[in-house]
C-alpha cells in the first residue's frame, strides 16, 4: 500500500516510474530503515528538507546491499513524481550540491534527451567535491562535474540502469539543440586579440538566446555531387573562407577542438577526387583481365 506510485503519475519510458530502479534493489530500499522511518509520507516540500540533509551520494553498499539515503530519496521522488519546475529548482540551486546531484539524477531518469542536455550541461561548470559511498562501504572523492559526465556517458550509475539518451550530434543535426558551448572556450578566446574576442563574445550572447528557427548545417553530404567541377585546391578562396582562415590561424595556438565529428572527418579528406579514383582502380584491372582472356582465346583458336 505505502509503496504504490501516486495515481496521477505519468508513465515514464512506458512503465511505472518506480520500475526504473530494478526489482532487487527496489525491494532492498523498501526494506531498509531509512525508507521506513524517514521516507514515509513525504511530499515534495519535505523531500527538499531531507535532501538538504544528505551527506553523500551512493548506490548500494556493503555485504548486505544496504541502499544509501540518496538512492532512497531518488525512489521516493519517482514515487511522488514532482513537477518539472521543482526538479529544475533542485538543479539550479547553488547552495546545496547534494540537492543538485539529486535533481540531476532524477532528471536523467525521467527527462527527454533535449531536456537532459539542456539542464545538465550547465552543471559541467560546477567543480565542487562530493563524497561517494562505493560498494565496499568506503568513501571516495567525486566532483560534481565528474558526476554529470558519468550521467551523460555511462549506462549504469549508482546501481541504476539509466534510460537511453540520444547522442548529442543527432539532436544537433535535427536542430533541436545548439552545438555545445564550453566555458573553456571563453578562456581560450581570452588569449586572443581583444577585438576578435569582442566579436565572439557578442556571438555567444546571441547564441545563448533561445534556439533560432534557421541554423546552418554543420555536416557535408559526401554522396551529393559537388557544385563546382574544378577541384577545391585550385579554386580561389571565397571571402567567407578568407576571413575564417585568418581567425583559424590565431586560434591554432591552442588545441583545436571541433565540436562535431563530421567536421573532423571532413578535414581528413584532402582531395574529394580520391573517392572517385579509388573505385576506378578496379575498373582498370577488370578491363585488362578481359583483354588478356580474349587474347588467349584467339591464340588457342589459331593453334
Amino acid at each position, binding site marked *: 500500500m505505502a509503496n504504490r506510485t501516486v495515481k496521477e503519475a505519468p508513465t515514464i519510458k512506458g512503465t511505472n516510474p518506480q520500475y526504473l530502479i530494478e526489482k*532487487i*534493489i527496489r525491494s532492498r530500499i523498501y526494506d531498509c530503515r531509512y525508507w521506513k522511518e524517514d521516507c514515509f509520507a513525504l511530499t515534495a516540500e519535505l523531500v527538499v528538507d531531507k535532501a538538504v540533509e544528505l551527506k553523500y551520494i551512493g548506490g548500494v553498499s556493503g*555485504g548486505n546491499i544496504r541502499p544509501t539515503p540518496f538512492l532512497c530519496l531518488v525512489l521516493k521522488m519517482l514515487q511522488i513524481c514532482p513537477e518539472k519546475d521543482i526538479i529544475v529548482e533542485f538543479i539550479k540551486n547553488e547552495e546545496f550540491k547534494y540537492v543538485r546531484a539529486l535533481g540531476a539524477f532524477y532528471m536523467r531518469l525521467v527527462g527527454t534527451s533535449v531536456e537532459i542536455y539542456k539542464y545538465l550541461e550547465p552543471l559541467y561548470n560546477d567543480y565542487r567535491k562530493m563524497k561517494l559511498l562505493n*560498494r*565496499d562501504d568506503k568513501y571516495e572523492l567525486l566532483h560534481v562535474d565528474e558526476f554529470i559526465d558519468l550521467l551523460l556517458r555511462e549506462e*549504469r550509475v549508482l546501481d541504476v540502469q539509466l534510460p537511453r539518451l540520444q547522442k548529442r550530434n543527432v539532436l544537433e543535426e535535427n536542430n533541436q539543440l545548439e552545438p555545445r558551448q564550453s566555458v573553456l572556450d571563453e578562456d581560450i578566446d581570452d588569449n586572443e586579440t581583444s577585438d576578435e574576442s569582442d566579436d565572439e563574445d557578442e556571438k555567444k550572447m546571441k547564441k545563448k538566446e533561445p534556439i533560432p528557427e534557421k541554423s546552418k548545417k554543420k555536416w557535408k553530404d559526401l554522396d551529393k555531387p559537388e557544385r563546382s567541377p574544378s577541384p577545391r585546391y585550385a579554386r580561389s578562396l571565397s571571402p567567407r573562407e578568407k576571413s575564417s582562415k585568418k581567425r583559424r590561424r590565431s586560434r591554432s595556438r591552442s588545441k583545436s577542438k571541433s565540436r562535431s565529428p563530421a567536421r573532423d572527418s571532413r578535414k581528413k579528406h584532402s582531395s574529394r577526387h580520391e573517392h572517385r579514383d579509388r573505385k576506378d582502380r578496379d575498373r582498370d584491372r577488370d578491363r585488362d583481365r578481359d583483354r588478356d582472356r580474349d587474347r588467349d582465346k584467339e591464340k588457342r583458336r589459331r593453334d
Partner: protein
Amino acid sequence: MIEVICNDRLGKKVRVKCNSDDTIGDLKKLIAAQTGTKAEKIILKKWYNIYKDNITLADYEIHDGMNIELYYQ
C-alpha cells in the same frame, strides 16, 4: 586451473574454469560471461558468508570442484 560450480538453485548451474590466484571479482566476471547477468549483480555466498571481491580464491580456500551459491544483487 580449477573448476568451480556455481548454482543459484533456480535453474542456473554453471561450471567455471579459473585459476586459484584469481580474485572473486574475476570469478564473477567469468560467471557473467557464461550466464549473461552483469558482473556487478552477482553475489557469491557460502551459507551466510558473502565472498568479497578483492580476495583470491586460494585465500578463501576454494578448491577444485567446490560448489558456491549464486545470488543476485
